[in-house]
């Protein structure tokens, strides 16, 4: 008898607890929805604020003259980013020439040829590790190997050295993106090719590479846009902070957009700060363009494969 009363009491208490808490729980749920949405929007908010700030600060300097002039110490208000822009285009081109074939090759080997041996597993862990090595460490690597050891080949602190260093930096990104694109291709494509008597390489060249290209290209564009935005590694391997000529060969010295911006930021006068902001507007323009291209490619590709 006493027992049943207790049970009834308990269930009654439980019921009132339950009724009391359900509105609290729904309230918490609504608050949480707001919280996660806000969190997801913080990044976009900061990006918008950042763009707004640099465009406001840089608008006084920004003009076509800014794009076509040399930086100037004497008349900084007439200075521009021309040699830095040319240097960055050189870096971009050479880095693409070096890193894209090597990255595609490594990805094809690892995804299509490599058997599950200990060596290949080591390579895999190693690549994911290289992706996490700080960019400035690649700078030190470039300093030891390309600037000092291979100076007769690379010409020391040349734009080629910069591109080689940046290539090593972005290779892991290209390899990972290409492997993912290759992995998404159904096995039936390969089997169809083999059944018709094609060799492994023939199947890769005629079917797998063209099919993987959009996915790989997305990764390649993002990797290259990261490469030309990097300042730390090329500062270590000897980018010029000032030069009076434009880069004309792979063995010339070079200036670059991010290091030119860095140089301006580190000068206290307002006119240099404004120049830095204008340079950032140009750099962000290039970045947004590259990213839009990558997003467009990816969305097109995803629709295609469905």
């Amino acid at each position: 008898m006493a027992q049943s009363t207790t049970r009834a009491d308990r269930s009654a208490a439980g019921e009132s607890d339950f009724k009391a808490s359900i509105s609290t729980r729904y309230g918490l749920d609504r608050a949480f929805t707001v919280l996660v949405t806000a969190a997801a929007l913080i990044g976009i908010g900061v990006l918008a604020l950042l763009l707004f700030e640099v465009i406001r600060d840089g608008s006084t300097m920004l003009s076509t003259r800014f794009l076509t002039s040399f930086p100037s110490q004497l008349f900084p208000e007439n200075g521009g980013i021309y040699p830095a822009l040319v240097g960055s285009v050189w870096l971009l081109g050479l880095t693409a020439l070096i890193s894209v074939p090597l990255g595609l090759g490594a990805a094809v080997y690892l995804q299509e040829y490599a058997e599950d041996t200990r060596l290949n597993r080591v390579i895999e862990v190693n690549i994911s590790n290289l992706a996490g090595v700080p960019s400035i460490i690649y700078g030190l690597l470039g300093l030891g190997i390309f600037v000092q050891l291979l100076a007769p080949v690379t010409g020391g602190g040349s734009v080629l050295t910069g591109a080689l260093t940046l290539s090593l930096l972005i290779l892991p990104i290209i390899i990972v993106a290409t492997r993912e694109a290759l992995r998404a291709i159904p096995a039936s494509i390969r089997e169809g090719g083999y059944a018709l008597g094609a060799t492994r390489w023939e199947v890769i060249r005629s079917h797998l590479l063209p099919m993987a290209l959009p996915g790989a290209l997305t990764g390649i564009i993002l990797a290259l846009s990261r490469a030309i935005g990097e300042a730390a590694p090329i500062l270590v391997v000897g980018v010029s902070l000032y030069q009076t000529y434009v880069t004309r060969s792979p063995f010339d010295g070079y200036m670059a957009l991010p290091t030119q911006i860095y140089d301006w930021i580190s000068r206290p006068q307002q006119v240099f700060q404004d120049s830095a902001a204008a340079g950032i507007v140009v750099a962000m323009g290039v970045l947004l363009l590259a990213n839009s291209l990558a997003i467009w490619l990816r969305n097109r590709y995803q629709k295609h494969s469905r």
Partner: protein
Amino acid sequence: MTIEAGGTRSGDDAWRRNSRAREVRERVIKLLLSACAYLSILTTFGIVAVLFEETVRFFLDVSIVEFLTSTRWAPPQGDFGILPLVYGTLVATAIATAVALPVGLLTAIYLSEYAAASLRRWLKPVLEILAGVPTVVYGYFALTFITPFFRESIFPDIESFNAVAAGLIMGVMIIPTVASVSEDAVYAVPRSLREGAYALGATRRETAMKIVVPAALSGIVAAVILGVSRAIGETMIVTIAMGSQANWLGSPLEGMQAMTAYIVQVVGGETPRESITFKSIFAVGSALFLITLVLNLVSYWFVRRFREIY
């Protein structure tokens, strides 16, 4: 008859030669492709060799015990205790993590559990833009916007170069890393677990926080470690916005120097190649490399673990 046989024979020969040529070509191509893959091993060896050689030469002049335990870092005076630089790096990284951990995790939950598929497809690439912004741009933003903002609002005594602004912006930089990797983990949690929770009367928030997040915990831990590792290796934000003065146990409102910022300071100056100061950047680089290597390996191990469960 004879002609036919001859024709067949020569065709036969041609086919064999062709096949041999194909085989040789296949082998050469496989060799070339494998060389591309082995380049990654060579890169790692290169990094280790360059860092090791110069670091050993540095330790011929400076005692390794002093390097690891002294709290004085003043290369011109010959004081090489790395702790103040490590402190600068850690303060900035801690602030960055305090920003990126909650924001990144909540973003991941939003993307995986709340956002409609169409929105998700656009929001993720936009977040990737944040990860791709050149770090000099973040540095500029911290120096010319965040620091003045703090000075006028909550910290009137803040120095022009300080750890708070640099750390906060570094946190924004690593949000996409934390969000993207933890979203992969959250997304991989089987649907049945969510359905089970709903069947028991759990709300959406309770399902997300009490079922999905714990189930994805090892992936989330991996994401945070990866973000921390990126923050430790970040160079330009701390170089531009945190200053170039080593500061042992200083307040986050003061300027301090990070390990990466020291390397930039030396290579940007007129330091002679053979001087002990120049060799010291390789010792600092080695320390940086080892710290990030350990963090990356731990993160890799966590990712593998959560993949094995589901």
